[in-house]
């Protein structure tokens, strides 16, 4: 185990026990996920992954901080949200925004009690290959595999990138038939995608 692994485990363990108060991003995880990962300077040992990864759907939320997760291959996990955990659901949110039925990916450290103390949780996040089929004022119709998806545009949170260009709030250059990658948050209630970023190709 590297010193970074040890520090991270100790930090999250402390946070899981409620002993840490975090203001802003830290080198070991923080409120903003981008800042937290940008601050990571030590490589993970590829031979012995020090992080635990959880994928699945939330079945219950216990004590306001423990997510019970059913994995897509039948596995069961308990993900502990600490005051050092970043939670993303279209944007950075509190655990109050997480609901049973949500899908998630989480990264963290395994605790002795079998839970995973998370440093980052991404709720309902998707990053999909689509073809633009229709364009409305507040939505995109998108072909995905053999089906169709609705992408919901949010003025405050949706941006676009055209042919590798910088992100912009201007979505007017999206065209029918274009290939795109869309990053957003799936809505379990209706299957639509709340769009964070639409990357349109050539």
């Amino acid at each position, binding site marked *: 185990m590297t010193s970074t692994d040890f520090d991270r485990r100790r930090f999250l363990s402390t946070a899981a026990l409620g002993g840490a108060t975090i203001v802003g991003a830290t080198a070991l995880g923080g409120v903003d*996920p*981008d800042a*937290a*990962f*940008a601050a*990571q*300077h*030590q*490589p*993970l*040992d*590829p*031979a012995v*992954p020090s*992080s635990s*990864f*959880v*994928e*699945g*759907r939330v079945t219950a939320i216990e004590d306001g901080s423990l997510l019970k997760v059913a*994995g*897509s*291959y039948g596995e069961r996990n308990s993900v502990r949200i600490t005051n050092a955990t970043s939670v*993303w659901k279209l944007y950075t949110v509190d655990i109050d925004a997480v609901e049973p039925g949500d*899908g998630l*990916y989480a*990264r963290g450290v395994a605790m002795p009690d079998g839970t995973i103390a998370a440093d*980052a949780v*991404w709720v*309902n*996040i*998707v*990053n*999909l*290959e689509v073809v633009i089929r229709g364009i409305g004022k507040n939505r995109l119709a998108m072909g*995905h*595999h*053999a*089906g169709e*998806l609705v992408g919901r545009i949010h003025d405050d949170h949706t941006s676009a*990138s055209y*042919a*590798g260009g910088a992100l912009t709030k201007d979505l007017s250059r999206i065209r029918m038939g274009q*290939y795109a*990658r869309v*990053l957003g948050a*799936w809505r*379990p209630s209706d*299957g639509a*995608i709340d769009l*964070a*970023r639409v*990357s349109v*190709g*050539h």
Partner: protein
Amino acid sequence: MACSNTYLWAGETTWFCCGAAWGPCASAGGGACGNCRSGSYHGAWPNASAACYSITRPDLCSGEGGIPRRGCGSVMKVVQQCSRAAVCITITDCGPRTHSFCGEATCCSGQCRTNRILDLTPAAFSAIASLNSGKTGVQIYE
């Protein structure tokens, strides 16, 4: 090839879902190799086969024409260009569509990586970068 330190390529990586999954990812399937799983350290390579190459067409982007063939089961070490966080992956799918994003660059600390030449599963991508960033610059070794 083992997960080692021989330089192979550099560029952008994005992420994708595969295998059994929730939401729209449920339709993704096991990928070109049949065994891709979002929760495993897997990846998609644009020259996993001749058929794959004909879809991804990295040769249409300047500098990517020589990207080597690495088929199902190939192992690579992926290193984030700035943090140097690393993860070992196994190729289990074909992708990304490199030609659709020719010239796209991801930069950090004044270093830029150009063109999408790798797709990682959420497990692999989150080991080196935040999923909500969508893409990041990497160097690839084998």
